[in-house]
């Protein structure tokens, strides 16, 4: 195999990897993490209507709410997931997941949240 062909194949493989792992480059896939850890409160549609919410004093964030989610920076979201709601002056009902998830996995989750809300910081579509 010529080096050119090899480089082309390597590039294609890398792009395929990017396409198939859009939100996480290490550890578990963001979607699977979200389904396992986040659904219970934020809901299977990400709309904050999880199976646990009935007796909660504060309702979980609706991750599909672009207007609200676009007011949060990626760093805010990362911190809320890693250190819990209290770290960003939100509810204690959102626990810190830093003991369970790696920084790479949390970064993947933040990207996945941007997919759910179809928004970026300061800009809702």
């Amino acid at each position, binding site marked *: 195999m010529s080096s050119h062909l090899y480089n082309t194949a390597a590039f294609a493989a890398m792009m395929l990897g990017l396409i198939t792992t859009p939100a996480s480059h290490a550890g578990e896939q963001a979607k699977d993490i979200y389904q*396992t850890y986040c659904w219970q409160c934020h809901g299977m549609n990400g709309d904050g209507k999880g199976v*646990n919410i009935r*007796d909660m004093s504060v309702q979980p964030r609706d991750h599909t709410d672009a207007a609200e989610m676009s007011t949060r920076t990626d760093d805010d979201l990362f911190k809320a997931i890693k250190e819990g709601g209290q770290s960003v002056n939100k509810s204690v009902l959102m626990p810190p997941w830093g*003991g369970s998830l790696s920084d790479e996995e949390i970064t993947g989750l933040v990207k996945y949240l941007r997919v759910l809300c179809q928004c970026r910081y300061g800009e809702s579509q």
Partner: protein
Amino acid sequence: MLLMNIIRLITGLTAGYLATALLLSVPASADSGLDILEKKCSGCHNLTGPSPQTLEEVQQRKGPDLFYAGNKYRKEWLEEWLQEPERIRPAGMYYGKHIKAGDEQDVIDPSTLEAHMAVSEEQAEAIAGTLMTYKAKSDLISAGEYQPGHISLSMGELMFDKFRGCLACHQIEPGYGGLSGPEVYTAAKRLQDDYLMSYMRNPKAWDPKVFMPSGYIREKDLAKFAHYFHALSEEDFE
């Protein structure tokens, strides 16, 4: 010759029938705990380890891992529960397999939940006896770590709900609290005290991918939570 063959056939059939009848008439209680666990329980419970290493494995898990049951459960509770099992996790082992979208929020889909089999008293004792020998992860247990103490129900609830938010996922009485985790009002009856301390300290050490946060409960609060579970277990919620 023909007569001899007929006699042999009848004899063989009779012997086969007798052997079958003998097998069927052996009381189930003659099975050892290990026999029952391997034949009846291993389809849903992990008896050998290791813990699920991927989220896929967590999501496929049908019942609690039992390979460290001897460090986890109280024997007397196992013996009673196995005879009259009642669901401990309202939304099943992995809630994501047992919920559906509802009008107001996601709801449990009861049609997806299977009842746990019940066994006789003798079988329950045999199973519990064997489970008590399953002692994986003993290095996580500090024997005698928990020292009995007292906390009021109101203070315990304050800690459990307002300070740490555990109520989000766990029920503190029937019908009150979150549904994705196991109920805690029976925890002190179900679980060994030193296991409770160890598990609350670091759930990930017992179950690497479990959907409960690790390293969250402060060291000085571990015993208070265990006191609270004991206080809850003495309540009559019926």
